[in-house]
């Protein structure tokens, strides 16, 4: 076994412990953010150095280190980097426990990195819980009424959904006698179709898995927690939840359903259809519920449900293509990469504005175009990208994922998605309109700190880069989508 392939995760673990220890001695809490960021950068550099090679899985085939996993690890590290940059000013409002805040962000990133590589049901469960338990604590970090309420709702619903997920895993283990994804696939492929159909255990297990993972990615009908938790959580954590937690959920869905249930074809057509229906309901419900919202974090909560719907189209395309081509998979990877920059950009702009106003109400954003023009410009760019208009990244992302779906006879789903994009333009553009045309409550300029500006510039550059020159990242996504089967 090759322990060197595990160094990015080990680095993060060491730095998380280091941050907690340093917290005891250091007065100047900014140092903790610097230490966390350096840990993320080191882990990122090592991950980039590993890119392109074809490594065997480590720990008895329990943890894959293929390019698919590396692609997602880079996404998580980039998100955590931006989140910590955006948190530096935000955390100064916590009187205590700043060290724990950074350490928990690092630990949940570690959990997500393990999720991206998990090739065994046991690893998958442990890494999922490592991520979730850190996030439960982070959501309640403000300790006020709303934050603790959000945390309790997230915890209770999250724990129920992971119990359901676990029951599904137990059924699949009972059906195949294996927990390693590749071995499960082999058992399923060697069984005759009659045996598979005669026993409900496999299908029931699969449905329970979809329910458990659906909670993580905020797919309808497991989306109840999203608006409340997004509203109550500290805003950097909301950003983190909406991007990284969703990407991690998609990483495991892709790996589990592609490598364990990818063959035979009738099976993948079945779950492809489930994902197609969930996508259609998710998009429609998310977009319609977002229209009457007045709180911007709640609005983005419903928007994230809708975006999960668009991403599920890619999963449906993957199910319908039965492993023939990578269009669906690489479409999801590209969409997630662009979604990371887009949603992070939007949330960092919201942190910049809301912490100064002490309000998340959309009407209070009136006149931001005059009071803080650069932040308003970045927020506008992010919202345009969420609608899916050029030149932002969201346009190319939707283009790739929709074309993958059209190739695999899912035209009806794409038509629903396009109608939904039009509906979504209404509520996204309403925010833009309030910002640029609304009457400001005061003429006072709002200034921003250097770290927030840096995070905002990085995210905006990402949006433009992926929107104008998508080819390079698309090639990376196609390369990463060729998952190794074990």
């Amino acid at each position, binding site marked *: 076994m090759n322990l060197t392939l595990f160094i990015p995760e080990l680095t993060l673990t060491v730095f998380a412990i280091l941050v907690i220890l340093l917290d005891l001695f250091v007065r100047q809490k900014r140092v903790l953010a610097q230490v966390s960021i350096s840990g993320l950068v080191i882990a990122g550099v090592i991950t980039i150095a590993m890119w392109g090679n074809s490594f065997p899985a480590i720990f008895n085939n329990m943890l894959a280190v293929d390019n698919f996993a590396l692609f997602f690890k880079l996404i998580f590290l980039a998100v955590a980097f931006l989140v910590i940059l955006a948190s530096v000013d935000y955390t100064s409002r916590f009187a205590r426990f700043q060290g724990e805040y950074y350490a928990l962000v690092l630990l949940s990133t570690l959990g997500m990195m393990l999720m991206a590589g998990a090739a065994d049901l046991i690893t998958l*469960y442990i890494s999922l819980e490592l991520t979730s338990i850190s996030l439960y604590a982070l959501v309640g970090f403000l300790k006020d*009424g709303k934050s603790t309420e959000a945390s309790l709702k997230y915890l*209770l619903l999250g724990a129920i959904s992971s119990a359901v997920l676990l029951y599904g895993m137990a059924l699949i283990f009972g059906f195949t006698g294996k927990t390693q994804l590749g071995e499960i696939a082999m058992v399923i492929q060697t069984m005759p179709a009659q045996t598979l159909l005669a026993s409900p255990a496999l299908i029931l297990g699969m449905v329970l898995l979809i329910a458990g993972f659906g909670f993580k990615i905020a797919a309808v009908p497991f989306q109840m927690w999203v608006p409340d938790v997004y509203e109550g959580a500290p805003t950097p954590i909301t950003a983190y939840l909406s991007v990284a937690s969703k990407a991690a959920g998609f990483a495991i869905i892709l790996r589990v359903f592609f490598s364990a249930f990818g063959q035979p074809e009738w099976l993948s057509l079945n779950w492809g259809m489930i994902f197609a229906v969930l996508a259609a309901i998710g998009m429609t419900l998310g977009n319609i519920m977002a229209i009457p919202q007045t709180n911007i974090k709640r609005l983005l909560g419903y928007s994230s449900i809708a975006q999960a719907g668009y991403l599920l189209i890619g999963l449906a395309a993957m199910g319908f293509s039965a492993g023939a081509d990578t269009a669906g998979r690489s479409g999801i990877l590209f969409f997630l990469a662009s979604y990371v920059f887009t949603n992070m950009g939007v949330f960092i702009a919201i942190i910049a504005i809301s912490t100064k106003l002490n309000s998340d109400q959309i009407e209070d954003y009136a006149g931001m175009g005059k009071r803080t023009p650069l932040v308003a410009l970045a927020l506008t760019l992010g919202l345009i990208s969420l609608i899916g208009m050029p030149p932002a990244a969201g346009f190319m992302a939707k283009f790739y994922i929709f074309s993958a779906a059209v190739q695999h006879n899912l035209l009806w789903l794409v038509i629903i998605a396009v109608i939904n994009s039009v509906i979504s333009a209404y509520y996204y553009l309403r925010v833009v309109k309030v910002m640029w045309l609304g009457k400001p409550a005061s003429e006072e300029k709002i200034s921003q700190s250097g770290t927030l500006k840096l995070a905002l510039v990085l995210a905006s550059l990402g949006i433009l880069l992926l929107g104008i020159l998508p080819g390079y990242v698309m090639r990376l996504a196609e390369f990463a989508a060729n998952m190794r089967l074990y």
Partner: protein
Amino acid sequence: MSLGLEHYLVLSAVLFSIGLYGALAKRNAVIILMCIELMLVAVNITLIAFSRYIVPAELTGQIFAIFVIVVAAAEAAVGLAIILAIYRNRQDIDVTKINLMKW
């Protein structure tokens, strides 16, 4: 009559359903947490029964169950801490009254 795999599976399915019902119907947050623990115990019974009857030569199911127990303990610890934080805020842990934000 000897005990077979079916008996264990039925037992665990019943336990899981009781847990799920309690988690959805009870109002006290601590009792909901206990019901979730019940669901996890039901899963452990399933795992161990499958391991014993399907692959008796390996201990995969038992190992999985140990991991589940450890994670459940961690989850309960964080859960109780959050319930304490809620209680300090409003002297009540009735989940139907925790409604600052509408569903």
